[in-house]
């Protein structure tokens, strides 16, 4: 047993982090929001970036090399999606990744693919070239997340169970990245922001909020990485529950650490929280995971 990242996995993680830092830094994130925020018009998806992700192998990561893919496994995909979650990379990333090798152009980033998920919601419908599932009669809603346009559909599509599991796992990976990032943001702010003549991070009340964020991140990380290795449905459910919690609670606590500034549109904190909420309602929701994990307790019982 060597439950640590291998050198190749570290290199992959650093590579993805470097690419995203160069192509989707904070300025790009804020620019993507221009004109967004409750408008009827969907924010635009950066097609250039999408193709770059494609040529970097983000979508074809798990396709065999014979099929033109990178030939890596789920643990590597999880590391890549964690990085996407760190920077709040917009777009139907998981649907396109899962369509690689199935939908022409998905693997290379030529095609943007979205899916009608089990919750009866579609992300990025307007920008998609291909929609998997029945999106007939889809009605736009005013998405809480300015960078994830949403449509509601009448008839939820139950979808392929494999895809539901992998969607849940990769969602957990994105949540993990977001949770780790909000932990850094909270700590950065607590170190530099001064009140009563000292950095607020010297106050135990603030320290303990930050420590709580980190504890949730680390517990979620172990669960998510293990689920990527075992691909066991109960492990994936556990990973999803803990990663959703780490992201949502982490973003809320990060907002709290930021005080009044955290409540403004200018601060980025709300973007992390809103994206975490959007991801948390994807198939493999809290109730579903908890019921699955409860049933699993009895699976081997006499």
């Amino acid at each position, binding site marked *: 047993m060597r439950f640590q990242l291998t050198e190749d996995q570290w290199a992959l993680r650093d590579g993805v982090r470097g690419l995203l830092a160069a192509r989707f830094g904070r300025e790009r994130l804020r620019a993507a929001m221009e004109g967004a925020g409750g408008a009827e018009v969907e924010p635009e998806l950066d097609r250039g970036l999408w193709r770059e992700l494609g040529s970097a192998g983000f979508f074809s990561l798990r396709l065999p090399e014979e099929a033109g893919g990178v030939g890596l496994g789920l643990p590597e995909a999880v590391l890549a999606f964690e990085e996407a979650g760190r920077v709040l990379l917009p777009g139907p990333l998981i649907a396109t990744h899962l369509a690689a090798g199935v939908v022409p152009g998905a693997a290379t980033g030529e095609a943007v693919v979205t899916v009608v998920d089990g919750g009866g919601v579609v992300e990025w419908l307007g920008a998609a070239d291909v929609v998997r599932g029945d999106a007939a009669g889809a009605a736009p809603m005013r998405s809480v997340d300015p960078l994830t346009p949403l449509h509601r559909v009448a008839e939820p599509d139950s979808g392929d169970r494999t895809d539901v599991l992998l969607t849940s796992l990769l969602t957990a990976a994105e949540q993990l990245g977001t949770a780790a990032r909000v932990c850094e943001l909270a700590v950065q702010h607590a170190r530099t922001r001064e009140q009563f003549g000292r950095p607020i991070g010297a106050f135990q009340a*603030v320290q303990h909020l930050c420590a709580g964020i980190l504890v949730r991140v680390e517990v979620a990380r172990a669960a998510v990485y293990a689920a990527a290795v075992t691909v066991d449905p109960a492990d994936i459910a*556990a990973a999803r529950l803990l990663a959703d919690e780490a992201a949502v609670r982490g973003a809320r606590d990060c907002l709290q650490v930021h005080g009044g500034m955290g409540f403004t549109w200018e601060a980025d904190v709300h973007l992390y929280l809103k994206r975490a909420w959007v991801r948390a309602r994807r198939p493999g929701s809290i109730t579903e995971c908890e019921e699955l994990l409860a049933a699993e307790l009895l699976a081997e019982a006499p």
Partner: protein
Amino acid sequence: MDLSDTPQEAEFRARLREWLGKALPSLPAKPSPDDWPGRRAYDLGWQRTLYDAGYGDVHWGADPAVRMIYLEETEKAGAPYVGANFVGLLHAGPTVAAEGTDEQRAHWLPPMLRGEEVWCQGFSEPDAGSDLAALRTRAWRDGDDYVVSGAKIWTSHAEVADWCELLVRTDPHAPKHRGITWLAMPMDAPGITVRPLRTLAGSNEFAEVFLDEVRVPVANRVGEENDGWRVTMVTLSFERGTAFVGEVVACRRVLAELAVAARENGRWDDPVLRRRLGRLNAEFRALWRLTQWNVSEASEGVPGVGGSVFKLRYSHARQELYEAAAEVLGEGGAALDLEQPWVLDRLSSLSYTIAAGTSQIQHSIVAERVLGLPKGR
């Protein structure tokens, strides 16, 4: 990332499993929790059995991954806990092994491993609480002896211990982490009074130890005079590493038992309770994975930060587990009946967020040492 055993690990696991299958049926009956002489004999007997089979030094001689397999397999098989040998095997032993002289190692380590001597820990003091370095027990040099006076508290197994790993203040004028010295004190020395403490669970789990001019030979000092804090830190992190492996395995077993009990008494039909058990399943699965992560990290010699993170989450989860157990027991006062399973465990679990550093102290450790936040007040 790999969660499967290496060939060596698999071989160790298989051999251990086979041995446990043969050794456990001939184990004597477990003594009652308040029968300290009985517990001492039982725990030492088990250690001797392990020693004879070649597993006596698995706690500090082995690779962390092997130790984890040992703890996992023994807990699954229902083998005895390390019990009265905890301080010797997991704390004083590794300390002597790392910091002692050859003579000291030869004197103290073999009896520990053979299950002949019990050690207790004289670290905590009545007024120090979580501030371990605030200790006030004093020691003066008098010829070849230290003369020790003061009081220790929360000392598990004090009533039946042969030795005490003792922290004393040898220089009251030095900064508080400096003037401390680590001594091995024989528990039969004149001037030692042991007074058992009764816990809220009704048991005599630990004791107060009063020291009135107790003479401890200077030869029993491990490390230099006034260097005891560093000596202690060498091994204290151990407590937060693999020490909880068996307990996580045990909690997962209890959780499965709760589910079965709930199915049998109809409580399983309550979706709120069912989902709560499901959530706890996620919790203990993740804690198990975090343990595997931390152990893998430790195997590579990386000074892990996972100890405090794990301890915080685990101690809380354990309390939640037994709160859920009370829910499973249902209406009609079963959760208030000390004869019922899990009720005593519910009481015992209350100590988990206090012992070995309170959750508040652990949060501050994580904030300052892991996240690098400024020193707090």
